[in-house]
């Protein structure tokens, strides 16, 4: 009877590698997890059977964490909630035990591990080559987030054995940078042409977008300017067949899956099939509160969390929509923030909606159909212009001004907002990026590139936890590796100060 001890899982939803990875469908399901890892908290609705367990499933959504880390430390967003140490993100006084920083870090590492596993399992199987290449692109994306947010981290690839304890080496910024560059330039030729893959899956556009952004910020990451390379990749994107969506607002609606003309890589949300309290659910609900009718966002109630600061409002000519990108909600809201924990302090923004371009409400009032445009063409118009202004070659000022004015005309509905050559300064570009790309997970990276996130070059309300904003330590340009991993892996260390 000792043979009874050799058991196999009985549950039809739990399989061993031998019994499950038997056909193309299962490999595609494995690939789907690599993508879903960007938005969902777990394997059952809603955020049940969570992927990471040191924080609540819905908080562990990659997109939610990414948004919190890219937006809350900046002038673009401030949150009214008192969840643990969430407030530290806007205060810029987090430490290595902050649970949100920790969750972001483990989420990135786990996403890399999921991709490593797929790459390893499909090794040498030519029929799954496309899956493997896409997983490499997604892995590069997460390494890029590690580079951008943590500046260092454990280095693991498909060569490492999973399921046994070992201590990964720590990769420096240069090493991560080089690795992403070598990976993406290798697979860039293998990935599908822009717009030719199934909707939602990575194509060349994603690889180019990551590279263009990484090169734009290369001075921050490795101290070496790579603006020419940034222009090279912007040109690939711009020449890739994309075009600006004529109506700015349409990019953020429930039917924005139709905007593949502009959106290069979306993270997909669906009201009935991709349900999470994180992801887009978080982004839509958390930004509705006060007197804002939730129904106008196509949702069943606001969570009254995220709104913006006066500094951001001031980047616009007014809050009444001359620049149509400034989708402010001001009724019942105060411009100034007296109390961080009062949603009514600070103007609200209604950028994302669970309503289609024809006015129909999304399929589910709790979970939006609205996809998140992680990368879209407008970003690379601005990247092109900035790389040119910063001295990169391969582009020119006239083209740059042309790109900017395309954005301006869409924003104003006419040419009244257009600029001329002398307007095209770095400061203008930083502001324009905020106006065009706010709440799309770029602001933190942008402010760092301009030396304005920390220190005292630019302060906004409640930066440094004081009402008028104050100078903060430059160490907050990166997040710390959580103390739990410093303790678990002796190869890791933090920068001084953490």
């Amino acid at each position, binding site marked *: 009877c000792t043979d009874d001890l050799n058991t196999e899982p009985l549950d039809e939803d739990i399989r061993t590698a031998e019994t499950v990875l038997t056909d193309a469908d299962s490999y595609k399901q494995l690939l789907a997890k690599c993508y879903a890892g960007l938005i969902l908290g777990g394997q059952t609705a809603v955020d049940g059977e969570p992927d990471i367990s040191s924080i609540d499933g819905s908080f562990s959504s990659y997109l939610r964490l990414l948004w919190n880390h890219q937006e809350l430390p900046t002038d673009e967003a401030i949150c009214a909630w008192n969840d643990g140490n969430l407030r530290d993100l806007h205060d810029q006084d987090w430490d290595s035990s902050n649970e949100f920083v920790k969750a972001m870090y483990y989420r990135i590492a786990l996403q890399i591990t999921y991709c490593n596993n797929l790459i390893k399992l499909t090794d040498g199987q030519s029929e799954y080559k496309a899956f493997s290449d896409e997983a490499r692109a997604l892995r590069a994306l997460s390494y890029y987030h590690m580079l951008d947010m943590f500046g260092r981290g454990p280095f693991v690839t498909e060569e490492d054995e999973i399921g046994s304890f070992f201590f990964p080496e720590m990769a420096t910024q240069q090493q991560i940078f080089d690795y992403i560059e070598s990976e993406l330039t290798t697979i860039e030729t293998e990935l599908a042409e822009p717009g030719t893959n199934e909707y939602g899956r990575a194509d060349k556009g994603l690889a180019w977008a990551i590279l263009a952004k990484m090169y734009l910020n290369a001075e921050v990451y490795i101290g070496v300017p790579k603006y020419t390379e940034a222009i090279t990749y912007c040109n690939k994107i711009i020449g890739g067949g994309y075009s600006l969506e004529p109506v700015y607002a349409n990019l953020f609606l429930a039917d924005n899956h139709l905007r593949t003309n502009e959106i290069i890589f979306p993270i997909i949300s669906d009201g009935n099939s991709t349900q999470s309290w994180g992801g887009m659910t978080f982004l839509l609900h958390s930004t509705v509160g006060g007197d804002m009718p939730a129904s106008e966002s196509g949702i069943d109630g606001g969570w009254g969390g995220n709104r913006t600061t006066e500094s951001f409002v001031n980047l616009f000519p007014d809050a009444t929509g001359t620049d149509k990108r400034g989708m402010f909600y001001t009724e019942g809201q105060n411009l100034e923030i007296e109390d961080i924990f009062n949603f009514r302090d600070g103007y609200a923004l209604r950028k994302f909606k669970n309503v289609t371009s024809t006015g129909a409400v999304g399929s589910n009032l709790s979970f939006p159909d609205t996809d998140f445009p992680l990368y879209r063409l407008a970003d690379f118009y601005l990247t092109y212009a900035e790389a040119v202004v910063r001295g990169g070659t391969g582009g020119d000022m006239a083209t740059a001004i042309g790109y900017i004015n395309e954005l301006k005309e869409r924003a104003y509905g006419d040419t009244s907002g257009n600029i001329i050559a002398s307007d095209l300064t770095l400061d203008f570009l930083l502001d324009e990026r905020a106006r065009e790309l706010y709440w799309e997970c770029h602001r933190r990276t942008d402010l760092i590139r301009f030396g304005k996130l920390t220190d005292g070059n630019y302060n906004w309300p409640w930066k440094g936890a004081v009402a008028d904003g104050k100078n903060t330590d430059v160490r907050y340009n990166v997040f710390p590796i959580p103390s739990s991993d410093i303790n*678990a892996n002796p190869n890791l260390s933090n920068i001084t100060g953490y």
Partner: protein
Amino acid sequence: QEKVVTGLVTDANDGIGIPGVSVVVKGTTIGTSTDIDGSYTLSVDANATLIYSFVGYRPQEILVGSQSQINVILSIETENLSEVVIVGYGQVRKDDATGSVFTVKSDDFNQGTTSSPQDLIVGKIAGVQIVNDGGAPGSGSTIRIRGGSSMSASNDPLIVIDGMPLDNRGIDGMSNVLSSLNPNDIETFTVLKDASATAIYGSRASNGVILITTKKGKAGQKIQVTYDAKFSIGKIKETLDVLNADDYRTLVTARAVNNSSVNPDLLGAASTDWQDEIYRDATGHEHNVGISGSYKNVPFRVSAGYTDQKGILRTSEMQRTTGTLNVNPSFFDEYLKINIGVKYMQIENQFADKGAIGNALRMDPTQSVFNNTGIYGGYTTWLMSDGSRNVNATRNPVAQLQQKDDNSDVSRVIADFQADYKLHFLPDLKASMKLGYDYSDSDGDVNTDMDASWVRASSTGVKRDYTQEKKNELVDFYLTYDKDLPSLDSKINVMGGYEWQHFWSKSSAFEVDRNNDQIEDSKNETENYLVSFFGRANYTFKNKYILTGTVRQDGSSRFHEDNRWGVFPSAAFAWRMSEESFLKNIDVVSNAKVRLGYGITGQQELGQGDYPYMGTYRLSDSRTRYQFGDQFYTLLRPDGYDEGLQWEKTTTYNAGLDFGFFNNKVNGSIDIYKRKTKDLLNTIPVPAGTNFTDLLLTNVGDLENNGFEFAINAIAIDTKDLFWEVGFNLSYNKNEITRLTNYDDPNYRGVETGGISGVGVGNNIQINAVGHSLNTFYVYEQVYNSLGKPIEGLYVDRNKDGQITTADKYYAEDPAQDYNIGFSSSIKYKDFDFGFNGRVGLGGQIYNNVIVGGRYQEMTVNEYLTNMPTEINKSKFETAQQYSDYFLEDASFFRIDNITLGYNFTKILKPLLGFDINARAFATVQNAIVITDYSGLDPEVNGGIDNDVYPRPRTFLFGLNVKF
């Protein structure tokens, strides 16, 4: 001269007559036995001495003299040296027992308890802590024997009912696994504490073993019927102090002046005590009938019981029906003994939404329960300014109770068949076989009213059905060889056997939202096996020196083939000093035995499913998919695992002394022990990037438990009319984590644990750290002003680096009580009996999570008002200070668990009814007295974090025992 003597022989415990007591004239064979109600008549000489004896009772001798009526009260033999104690797979003579084993018999059970068997022995046994999980009817308890030996794995003891080890994992729809037994059917609880006693249960014995036997019929016994009834009313002892409507109105109005977020327009005009609205007086009643005896030489017992108990939280209720049958015939001159037992239980639970407990503290007292607007069932509900429901706001706690119907219906059968056969050609050798089958079937429905305020347009489940089936099958076979070797002045007892156990469960759940769209459809099936070989040898020399050795080899399907088998040995030595000549002649000393034991036990109850070593993939459900093109794909996720997972092993050293004085009228024991757990099953952060998870269960770390126990029982007075017995036990236990990581890192602070709530998500208040006890509180040291008020946000800069960072947190105390004391007293005076039992806990800490959420800032967040505890007037905290040691309090307590007064009215009743009957009525107060410094409701909270615990009611109980 001959005379006729009549009398009644009653049980000292319950005052009920004992039938079948032998009444014999000393030195003769002349005698009689008592009839069904315990009375007798006998003709004797006035000079004769009568001996009253009955198995299990201490005999009494009485000189007849001038008496013509002699009533005798017999009490249970507290320490009968010839009696046997049950150990795993058999029994040993108490003389020959070498381990730390403690038995509580039904007569010594706590009185007046209702549905939960474990309540019968609360406070009775040194080193056994039983804390119930709250006051809900039928709620479970956390049982800890000697503090628990594990960190992440289970610390629950193994429970064995009539030889059948149970699956400790819960049964869906039932909050207490043990409540499948009716306390009235239990005969004994035997607790095996040290490894020399438990190691025979190998891999499941690290946290001690509780052996429960049920009542059985006796051969030759007349048929006897018992009827027990109880009627109870439970009342909430006290509610938490929160601001009343007037004070709250004043506060909100005052604060609105300087705080833009505080909106006094939200205040209502009512004055509602929300706690009054959710609690009620809870009634209960219970009836049990038992019939036992011998029918045509076949001993049997059948019983039926019914309990209906309401909870003090409105809408909570439990109804339970139980039935048992035990038949234990013997054949071939007792060479073959058969025991068949069937226990059946059916329980219907109505669960109340416990979220209402916390919401009753937070709901604005100026709002009325109903607003009669017709929406949301008429219950007052927070709205947004556009009239839509405020999804963030506190739910109306009354609506939470009334608009949700959460029912379960669970049936369970435990059946066992045992055959013991003494070989005809070698009667010293006995073959035993046991077949056991434990099956449960749960069915649950959760229905929410469509117009409940928290039901969203979609995606909120309004109708959920769940089912679960569980099966636990057992086969064991063992041989016992028992031999006296008078020539060598030795006795030997050898046992060896094999056991196979299979645990299987299957569950499903289906849930729809208001549009009838399915939001959950899950199925789950899992199993595990345990295969074991075991043996024990007992050797007694000169009736003084006893050696016991046991060994068990367990194979568990939960581990990888390479780590699957574990060997768990033990050895013990006992020396019966009282048999030595230097003590034998000292009359005062009736028993003295020294015990030394050593053993290794294991742990495989990981709490991580049945396949934790296996790299598995999990498929997602239909609402958790990802879109490619226009198709949605199910997700396939690899799950974290540790292939090298293996047994956690605990080595126990125990030294003890059993003593008895004055013919064991005073008896007790002392034990001292050390328990070392290595390869601790511990959930730790994995190095990021090396596994499919962030936290993983693995074997890392060492833990030590050290403690001592002392127990004493004494019969202080034992006369014809007055009998007084007292019991006292004390135990001390302290654990310490001695290693946590695979490499030395002086900066390693530990693994955080102990989640708290009310202040956002992801906050932990405890830590497991080297050099400290399990679950030590990890907090900042609060600084106070000269008036003793905490200064908000100011903590002691412990590392003196000029700033307050997490490095300034310190390791405070742990939640476990260092000392636990149990005490009891029972007095019988003529027909009256009076008893109480209580406990003392010393040295535990508790985190008052209930008041942590109370802070001014929380008053209006997001367009609704939140009430707070009156404690806010003391701390005046603006923002959450959850990591402050301000919220840590001393959890020491003194409590009287119950007080019982009984009266035996047989004498009144019998003449009225005209037939033989025994009857006793009693009244009990449960949860009678608690004295503590803790500012919350109750200092006894499992885990030490007090948050919205279902309050334990004070219950007044009236009961009746009838026997005829």
